[in-house]
């Protein structure tokens, strides 16, 4: 094992940081969906031109064939600068879904389009809003006049407000879980934007008799291709969270050393030093768990992959809370001020926490897999 970055990895991180620093301001909070789509399309094309959209796509499909060790460096850098691009859905989850699709020609064409930046595909899997369980599916596909049509509602679709396509999980006519590719502009698709807690572009998407092609995955593959892709996305989010924690730590460190009360820097008070030390420990443990989970993604064992991913996500959720709460407390009033940078990191951290399962969901999955 070696945790030093290679020259190539350092260059990759450098590329992401430059992109994040130069990609201009986001549309205002109240901007229309069209404005957001246009802005996201422009920035996504920039990311594709820099080679970031195709980072985990195989070279034979036009990508760069990099592994998750590289991808998580990109995610962490995006988190540090709070870039909030649809990278995790568009460049991690979508390729991971499509690379296991049955139809080779379709698969290759779709992966190529992702790498070129012409599509932003997200996964539309969640229906429940009070917990995370991608296996609970009531969206269904029915045979109709020789074709298939898909009907159902997906809630809180991540990056759903700006995506060009959805990979929609649904029960096939035999009530077996599979997934279908649907374009956002297709007749019968209604996208309602939901502005997320941390500024994310979520959507509630309704599918009303939408015509679909053959399912993406082999008959009988079940949920595994979907779970596997979401697991990759979950680790990518953990890495983004590491970037957020890094920034929250550095904001707090600076504040402790510069803010004066009672005639000295508040960082000279031991109670505050200890709280800061707790933040450091939480961030380090989160990093270890994220690396562990990224390593497990490369393996063939689906059970241990899910365990490691759940271990990492539950830990990042718990420690993310500890870090953000300590950062706020150590900052005092300025820490709960919307205008101050910290507030945006806090809310994005909470958004990550609630995406694809929180500490409770992942502790439950970890527990079930351990007992099995």
């Amino acid at each position: 094992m070696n945790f030093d970055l290679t020259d190539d990895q350092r260059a990759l991180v450098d590329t992401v940081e430059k992109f994040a620093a130069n990609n201009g301001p986001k549309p205002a909070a109240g901007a229309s969906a069209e404005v957001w789509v246009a802005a996201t399309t422009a920035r996504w094309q920039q990311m594709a031109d820099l080679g970031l959209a195709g980072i985990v796509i195989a070279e034979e499909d036009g990508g760069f064939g990099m592994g998750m060790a590289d991808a998580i460096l990109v995610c962490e850098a995006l988190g540090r600068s709070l870039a909030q691009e649809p990278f995790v859905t568009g460049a991690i989850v979508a390729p991971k879904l499509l690379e296991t699709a049955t139809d080779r020609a379709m698969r290759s064409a779709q992966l190529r389009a992702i790498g070129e930046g012409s599509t932003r595909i997200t996964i539309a899997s969640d229906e429940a809003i009070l917990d995370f369980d991608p296996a609970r599916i009531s969206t269904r596909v029915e045979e109709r006049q020789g074709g298939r049509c898909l009907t159902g509602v997906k809630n809180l679709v991540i990056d759903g407000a700006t995506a060009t396509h959805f990979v929609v999980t649904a029960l096939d006519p035999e009530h077996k879980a599979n997934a279908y590719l649907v374009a956002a502009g297709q007749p019968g698709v209604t996208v309602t934007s939901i502005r997320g807690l941390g500024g994310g572009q979520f959507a509630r998407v309704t599918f009303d008799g939408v015509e679909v092609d053959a399912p993406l995955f082999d008959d009988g593959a079940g949920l595994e291709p979907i779970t596997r892709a979401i697991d990759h996305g979950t680790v990518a989010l953990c890495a983004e969270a590491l970037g957020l924690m890094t920034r929250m730590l550095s904001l707090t460190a600076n504040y402790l050393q510069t803010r004066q009360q009672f005639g000295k820097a508040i960082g000279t008070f031991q109670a505050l030093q200890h709280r800061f030390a707790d933040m450091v420990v939480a961030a380090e443990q989160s990093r270890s768990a994220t690396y562990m989970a990224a390593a497990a993604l490369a393996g063939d064992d689906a059970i241990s992959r899910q365990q490691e991913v759940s271990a990492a996500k539950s830990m990042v959720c718990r420690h993310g809370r500890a870090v953000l709460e300590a950062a706020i407390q150590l900052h005092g009033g300025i820490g709960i001020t919307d205008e101050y940078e910290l507030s945006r990191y806090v809310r994005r951290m909470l958004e990550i926490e609630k995406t694809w399962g929180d500490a409770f969901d992942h502790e439950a999955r970890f527990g079930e897999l351990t007992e099995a």
Partner: protein
Amino acid sequence: MNLSLSPADVAFRESIRTEIAALVPADIKARVDNLQHLRKEDFLRWQAILDERGWAAPAWPAEYGGPGWSPMQRVIFEEACFLAGAPRQIPHVNMIGPVLQTFGTPEQKRRYLPDIPTLRDWWCQGYSEPSSGSDLASLRTRAVRQGDHYVVNGQKIWTTWAHWANYMFCLVRTSDQGRPQEGITFLLMEMDTPGITVRPIHSLDGAHDVNEVFLEDVVVPVENVVLAENQGWTVAKFLLNAERTEIAGLGQAKRLLQFATRLAERLAAEGVAASRRNVFENTLTRIRIDLKAHEWTLMRVIAATENDPRAPSASVLKLCGTDLLERLSTLLMDMGGPAGLAYDPSSRGGETDETPPYGHVLNGTAATYLEFRKSGLVGGTTEIQKNLIYRETVGQWGTR
């Protein structure tokens, strides 16, 4: 020691609960129950209803038009309000009112007291400054005496509802002699005095409650000093003591607990996995237990006589209240699950009644978590409270 509530207090509790429950307007109750952000109009309407009954200033003695309740009766009243879904008490009524009754000149009492309970005058508190938070005594907003008035220059921050207020009571520096506390004066000013500028601060939850108040060559008549020049710290300490029951957060905690209990039922009804619900139920149980003890701590503080060595300090009350509010708001955030994602901070405190994507109740889970991150900061940080407890008690404990 007598551990039971007096028969008179029991009877008072029964009657006040019934009466209050019948008084809260349904639309206000709905907003309060959903943990929505209230508007000034909501507070004004509720205060007018209380005023009709003579309950608008619960901490005021009868001689100033208050109900003349005992501290215990006030707590019973506050609890009844929270249980009925009424808005929280406007803190300044119970703060500046007793301050003026205790230290005010006859003229100050005549001029200011009548319009405080009705909220015709809305007061804000100008204490904290950008460089003086925990170290409040270091405050630098300066009032320079020029004949029969002061000229005030400086800046206040975290001033709650300054944008709704027409008066501010504030602490200003009038001397650099002696200890920093000895050069502070308690001064009243009208918010429309030239030179006062209020700038909004939006909080983590998106709401606009607190403000920055800039003071530039603000002319304030000398008769607006309360008590005397350089005696402001005495007034400030008195006021801090007056707000100690408010600072216990008991009513707020009970409201959040009520909300959490209803949400737990909804989670069960909507088929959330038992493994997940069990975690929340266990947390809820512990909070319920701790809240009961907290209530008794409040009773011990309220009923304490001057010479009771076992009375807990107000800091103990504040710490326990903070702990409960932090845990309850965290629990709500957890119970809300993915639905919390749909909370849009830019919608908080808006004038529209637009329903959020997944309803007001689920919206309230994330809103409350974000809002209550202030618990360990307002009214003296957790770290400062711990310092106080140590300083106040280590000597006593050492000699036992």
